[in-house]
């Protein structure tokens, strides 16, 4: 069983949904970033999503765009992101780690080499925002061979005609993008999220994680009642950004500030009673 599978089995046994936290690798600098990621699991993150910085993040709002720019300025690369995961795995062999980003750095690195090196580093899954199911065989084939999950995205515009092709070669979990739009902008209402998750479950037995627009512990708890996991990204990155000096170096309290938010989100998710599914 993969780490992702094990984690969702354990969550189901505990009768609760999981918290997935997103931060960008190397933001605001490689050292602070590594220490921050290392503290997430203890603060209550059930899955760790690590953003691979990209110069042209088309699906991201300003908050995550800026995180990527900060990381790139600090010399972050895909190779260094994998090294970061290797370092994290040295201390934590249980928490699933999923990389999220855009295809060009992976393509440049080589899809097959990426799948191999990612798994060797301890990565469990990958989400590639700009690779539609019609075009992703060159990544899914080597990924599946290397036992790297390829997490597919579904959105409010993914209709019943399209969902079967989205879930067809998906593995790990399905990432439901709760709004039509980009990260860190609007929030969906709880009822429409619940309806969407119910609809997705008609097409797949994979766990469903919901992200985009979840900012507060209350919103995370609402999503946790309907879905298998709630993903929080922009609000954590924003907390990080609020703890930067004008030259983008970390203020002393940065790590604590972000982890305090993670603890509050985790408490929200853990306190939410699951609706029977």
């Amino acid at each position, binding site marked *: 069983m993969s780490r992702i599978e094990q984690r969702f089995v354990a969550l189901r046994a505990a009768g609760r949904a999981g918290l997935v936290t997103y931060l960008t690798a190397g933001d605001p600098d490689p050292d602070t970033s590594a220490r921050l990621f290392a503290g997430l699991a203890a603060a209550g993150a059930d899955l760790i999503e690590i953003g691979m910085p990209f110069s*042209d993040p*088309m699906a991201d*709002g300003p908050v995550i765009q800026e995180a990527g720019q900060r990381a790139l300025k600090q010399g972050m690369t895909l190779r260094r992101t994998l090294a970061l995961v290797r370092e994290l795995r040295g201390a934590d062999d249980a928490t699933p780690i999923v990389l999220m980003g855009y295809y060009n750095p992976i393509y440049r690195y080589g899809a097959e080499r990426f799948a191999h090196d990612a798994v060797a580093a301890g990565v469990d899954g990958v989400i590639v925002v700009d690779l539609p199911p019609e075009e992703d065989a060159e990544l899914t084939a080597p990924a599946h061979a290397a036992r790297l999950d390829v997490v597919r995205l579904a959105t409010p515009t993914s*209709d019943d005609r399209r969902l079967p092709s989205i879930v067809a070669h998906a593995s790990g979990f399905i990432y439901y993008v709760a709004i039509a739009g980009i990260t860190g902008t609007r929030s969906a209402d709880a009822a429409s999220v619940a309806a969407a998750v119910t609809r997705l479950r008609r097409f797949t037995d994979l766990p469903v994680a919901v992200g985009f627009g979840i900012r507060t512990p209350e919103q995370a708890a609402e999503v946790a009642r309907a879905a298998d996991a709630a993903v929080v990204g922009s609000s954590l990155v924003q907390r990080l950004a609020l703890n930067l000096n004008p030259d983008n170096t970390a203020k002393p309290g940065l790590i604590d500030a972000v982890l305090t938010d993670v603890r509050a989100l985790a408490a929200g998710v853990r306190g939410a009673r699951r609706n029977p599914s």
Partner: protein
Amino acid sequence: MPLVLAVEEAYAAARRDQGFQAELDYYLEHYVGRPSPLYFAERLTRHFGGAKLYLKRDELNHTGAHKINNVLGQTLLARRMGKRRIIAETGAGQHGVATATACALFDLPCVVYMGATDIERQKPNVFRMKLLGAEVIPVHSGTATLKDAMNEALRDWVAHVEDTFYVIGTVAGPHPYPAMVRDFQSVIGEETRAQLEKAEGRLPDTLVACIGGGSNAMGLFHPFLDDPDVAMIGVEAGGHGIETGLHAASLSGGEPGVLHGNRTYLLQDADGQIRDAHSISAGLDYPGIGPEHAWLNELGRVQYVSITDREALEAFQLASRLEGIIPALEPAHALAHVAKIAPTVPRDHLIVMNMCGRGDKDIFAVADHLGVRL
């Protein structure tokens, strides 16, 4: 994805509908002023002392460039799809002006994304777009140029997919855009074919066009691709020179990659991060090239070369003095390459170069480079 699938479906249906083509033809003739002349450039021909040079005068189109051909096609498609809001990206501003023009014509709200850096460089076009009723939104993200404007337009589109149509300005982006924009621009090559047949009774020997994303070149080349005796040359912007790294030549100085929904040659670093393009001409300042050009390059069907800022500036002045045509800096790149090859071929060799835009927008930049204060 469903949004581009909807465009693909609607475009396929429109292509089968003669009414759609008739409506487009009507506006191309009466609003744009097509067909544009195919003009025998006698003085340039004499100056080069070799090939007989014809200029396809797409700079005489309404709005001053070839961009309007494609914009009208896409705007009519948007109307057909019942979309009530148009968005576009623009670099130099020519595509933005063309889109704002079509939106004024058809009474559609228009939002144009433009890099903050480009807004500073292209103030006259920004003012034109505003006069035409468009909202110009400065893009500060990334490097604040054309690629970032395209990112921002895509972000807008996914958030407003219900009522919005994204008018892409070149033969790039997700399918069906590269093919659709090519089809709408092919009117350039189709007219050229008929006009040269009338003037010379035969096909051209060589076609030359400049390339940013590559829409004017694709429009000229495409109707001739199956004529093996017609040579084709695409001219990329070499900036300060390919070896300096400061250029916009994706084929000559880029590597394969994936961006904006298409796989093509891109300016990028070893980590796959997109590098900024540099050119004296903002319209060629795109770090990628249409995927069909990448394919034609690999087939060897089209030859791709590059011209530096300095060479383009010389050609800009040459066309102005010898033909009374102030070209845009974009086709000045094409003319600079014509200047290299025309003297080397016999006098019965027919070259057609696409004069895809006029130079009014560039006079400030050119004056600046020539050390003249306006």
